[in-house]
């Protein structure tokens, strides 16, 4: 007997979205992830934008899934209790000559079904966003654009999938996949697994996974983007997500508030060979800082709290590869998922799950629970509620992270969930401990102790993220 | 023999040169005040340091207590002192000034606690 009906490779936002949607069906599903936690690759380091959907060429997967994903996101954020905000976006142009570029986006957007799109003048734009550059001549305003917490979204999807029976297997990289006739044998770094169906949601590694079973080779290019994140003090500089007209390598440098109130600037785009190269560079950071200033005046870079880089899983032909591989029955791809992948995730998950369920002839489970309770954010409660919470659960009265006001209660909750945090980055992504302006200076020792206690392990084994990233040495 | 030192007496940080001639007499140049000269002579004749560290506490409200050598010890004994401190532990309660090691590494100097630790 096969171990599972479906094995999903990759626990990023795409894998987690597919897992959550598959959980609606009577299928035994597992998610295999090479890192120690969900949301550890492309999903963790990106612009955190829910695009309106005017960018993609009509008829592409990107176009189809973006608009639908955008529409689904609000409801999903309520069902699964993660931060999402429809803050609207603008694409700027800086000369009369560029206006046709905006008009083209407007047309595309209309074709794709984006609602409320409108080209406005620079003055109108500045009225809505006083910090916009004086050079702005026109802007495409998209009221449906939004921002989301990519960790919040991915973790919510994964938790909800787990609650409905999906298993998550971490620290397992896939070395080889074999078609056994009755299904697939998935050879991992921690033993072999078998399943009738395999879903490839492996991000920048999706080409390797696909090419293990298919002769129609694909290539995923890791395209690095660097970002600068600023303190919440700077978060109010703009309320919309501010784009420039897209260039060849992507949507260009944006300036946006985050759902948590920080200000984010980035990304650039550099194609690499190394699928693990998330290093930032002095030149790259300079480039985005300069380019962003073209859009928005007075970006307070002295309030920078961190900079980071992520890898887009760019597919050569510039579209997602979704569906069953032609020469590998039962092997489904969700490959080349780069921007607007985050925005597409809800729709992609639904679409892929329906496809797999149809293939498997699986029925919907009557007992699927489609909602999930998010983490309590004690600092956001009103004083009476917060006092009541602490009386009931005293650990919410012990503040560990001073900058973000995160208590021991939130940290323990992050660890105790399924799938729960097993690293400090895992805690950070769930409840924002160490995400603030001191970047974990004070709370690292305390969070390490709590994690070691909860996991019943020696503190020397506590990692920042994957194995090998231990904090203590010697 | 000639040695170059930086005076630690004040922020001026005078660059001191200390020469010991064949007769064993010490000549200091580069100092601005008498403290600088005294410091230089001490540094070449018998340099000493206070060593501070921590040792584990058993049965205390916290797990470690800070300690120091009660007096300066010869500079070349620092690592001997550290080695002995590293092999030591104490039991709560501990009071500031309590002797942790009576004669540390043969220096004739005690290692004493610099923090109070109550019993659990």
């Amino acid at each position, binding site marked *: 007997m096969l171990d599972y009906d479906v094995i999903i490779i990759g626990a990023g936002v795409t894998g987690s979205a597919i897992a959550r949607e598959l959980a609606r069906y009577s299928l035994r599903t597992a998610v295999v992830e090479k890192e120690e936690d969900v949301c550890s690759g492309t999903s963790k380091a990106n612009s955190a934008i829910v695009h309106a959907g005017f960018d993609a060429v009509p008829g592409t997967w990107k176009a189809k899934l973006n608009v639908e994903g955008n529409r689904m996101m609000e409801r999903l954020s309520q069902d699964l209790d993660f931060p999402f905000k429809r803050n609207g976006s603008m694409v700027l142009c800086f000369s009369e000559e560029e206006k046709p570029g905006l008009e083209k986006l407007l047309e595309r957007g209309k074709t794709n079904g984006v609602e409320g799109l409108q080209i406005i003048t620079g003055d109108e734009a500045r009225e809505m966003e006083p910090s916009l550059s004086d050079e702005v001549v026109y802007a495409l305003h998209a009221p449906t654009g939004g921002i989301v917490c990519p960790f919040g979204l991915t973790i919510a999807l994964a938790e909800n999938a787990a609650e409905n029976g999906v298993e998550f297997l971490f620290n397992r990289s896939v070395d080889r996949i074999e078609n056994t006739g009755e299904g697939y044998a998935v050879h991992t770094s921690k033993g072999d697994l078998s399943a009738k169906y395999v879903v490839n949601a492996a991000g920048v590694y999706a080409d390797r996974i696909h090419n293990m079973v298919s002769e129609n080779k694909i290539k995923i290019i890791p395209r690095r983007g660097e970002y600068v994140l600023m303190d919440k003090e700077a978060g109010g500089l703009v309320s919309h997500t501010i784009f420039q007209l897209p260039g060849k390598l992507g949507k260009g440098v944006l300036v946006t508030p985050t759902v948590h109130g920080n200000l984010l600037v980035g990304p650039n785009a550099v194609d690499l060979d190394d699928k693990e190269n998330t290093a930032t560079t002095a030149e790259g950071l300079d480039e985005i800082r300069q380019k962003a200033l073209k859009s928005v005046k007075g970006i307070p870079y002295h309030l*920078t709290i961190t*900079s980071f880089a992520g890898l887009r899983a760019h597919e050569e032909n510039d579209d997602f590869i979704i569906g069953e591989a032609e020469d590998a029955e039962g092997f489904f791809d969700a490959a080349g998922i780069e921007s607007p992948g985050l925005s597409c995730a809800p729709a992609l998950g639904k679409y892929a799950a329906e496809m797999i369920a149809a293939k498997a002839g699986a029925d919907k489970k009557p007992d699927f629970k489609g909602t999930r309770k998010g983490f309590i954010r004690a600092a956001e409660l009103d*004083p009476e509620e917060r*006092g009541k919470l602490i009386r009931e659960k005293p650990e919410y009265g012990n503040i560990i992270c001073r900058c973000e006001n995160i208590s021991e209660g939130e940290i323990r909750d992050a660890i105790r969930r399924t799938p729960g945090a097993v690293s400090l980055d895992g805690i950070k992504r769930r409840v924002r401990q160490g995400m603030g302006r001191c970047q974990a200076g004070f709370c690292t020792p305390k969070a390490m102790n709590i994690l070691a206690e909860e996991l019943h392990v020696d503190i020397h084994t506590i990692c920042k993220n994957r194995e090998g990233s231990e*904090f*203590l040495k010697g | 023999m000639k040695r170059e030192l930086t005076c630690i007496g004040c922020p001026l940080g005078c660059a001191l040169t200390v020469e010991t001639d064949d007769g064993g007499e010490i000549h200091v140049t580069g100092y601005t005040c008498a403290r600088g000269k005294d410091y230089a002579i001490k540094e070449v004749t018998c340099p000493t340091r206070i060593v501070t560290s921590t040792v584990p506490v058993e049965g205390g409200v916290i797990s470690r207590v800070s300690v120091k050598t009660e007096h300066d010890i010869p500079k070349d004994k620092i690592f001997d002192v550290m080695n002995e401190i590293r092999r030591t532990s104490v039991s709560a309660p501990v009071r500031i000034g309590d002797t942790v090691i009576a004669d540390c590494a043969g220096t004739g100097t005690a290692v004493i606690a610099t923090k109070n630790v109550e019993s659990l």
Partner: protein
Amino acid sequence: MLYHDIVIIGGGPAGLAAAAAAKEAGISDILILERDEMLGGILNQCIHNGFGLHTFKEELTGPEYAQRYIDRVLEEKISYRLHSMVIDISRDRQVTYINREEGLVRLQAGAVILAMGCRERPRGALNIPGYRPAGIYSAGTAQRLMNIEGYMVGKEVVVLGSGDIGLIMARRMTLEGAVVKVVAELMPYSGGLKRNIVQCLDDYGIPLKLSHTVVDIHGKERVTGVTIAQVGADRKPVPGTEEYYSCDTLLLSCGLIPENELSRQAGLEMDRVTSGPVVGDDLETSVEGVFACGNVLHVHDLVDYVSEEAARAGRQAARFVREPRKKEEKQDALLKGENGVRYTIPQHLNVECMDEQTVVRFRVDNIYRNKSIVVYFDGKEAVRRKKRILAPGEMEQIILKKSAFSSCPDVKEIRICLED
């Protein structure tokens, strides 16, 4: 609502000294709110010696220095709460804090003294490119892990920044068996005390590279090395000067910033240079009855000065509780630092109400030799004092006597600058 005459936020050296002084000035109803598990603040992890030379005329370790003040607080039966985090201060001095036992508590304070200390500048603020692996610590975090928890953070270490904590940690890690390969400092001079450079680096043969910085961090999981390069006069790396150092740990000691969350949230007027609140000679902030002292006001070099300043805040808060003054009654002279003087504390002074003398503290922006500190009252020279050396790492001070204002009680501007 619960009431206390004086609520002190922070039980470190500043909060303790403020409490003791307020008590001495006749106020008994004092509450100290400390967020950590013990009184003493950051001194608990500063196990090295060298504290208290000014105050006690002897060399104490951090915990010993703290204990002197803790003992006074205990003897005076001043109440304090541990594990208690203040989450809000209102303009009318309502203080809200939380802890496990009491939940959320709101109380009214006659006066509030801010004494939350400071924090370290993190990597992000330094804009060091490269990977983001484990093994990058601010020096103070490493210090806590080693000295409080007893854990070793690394075996091969590079330190960026020659602030005192970085120097102290270079020695500490060496003593515990680590190899500290180099200390790189962006500036052409060290921000640390001479004594620390000699006794923490020279003693152990650790090189100090001035005008150098980290330009790349290597290692995907744990730090495997860093690249260091020389910087030019513009503080930008000079191409071709890159040098690779293999190491598993990078310690950052690149400056301290007042812990100003509450100060900002309470709406205090802030000083852009110090990142702390603006205060008068009575150490009162722009909000009536809210005082500030210690590193939350401006980063000090020696704890002795923290204690002294905090005691002043304690006395002034006590005075405020006894005879509250309205802000608008005050007509203050503004202090201005110029020509090498980066800032002054206080930022304004009330000639009529001031003590017999006021200590004005400031820092300079470079190393200066044989300069004079000159004070002008509305453009007229009032004080001139020669200094052999002034350095950014050391806090400077000049004393203004009340009697000096007898001829100009209505002075509007007090300018402090460096001259030849």
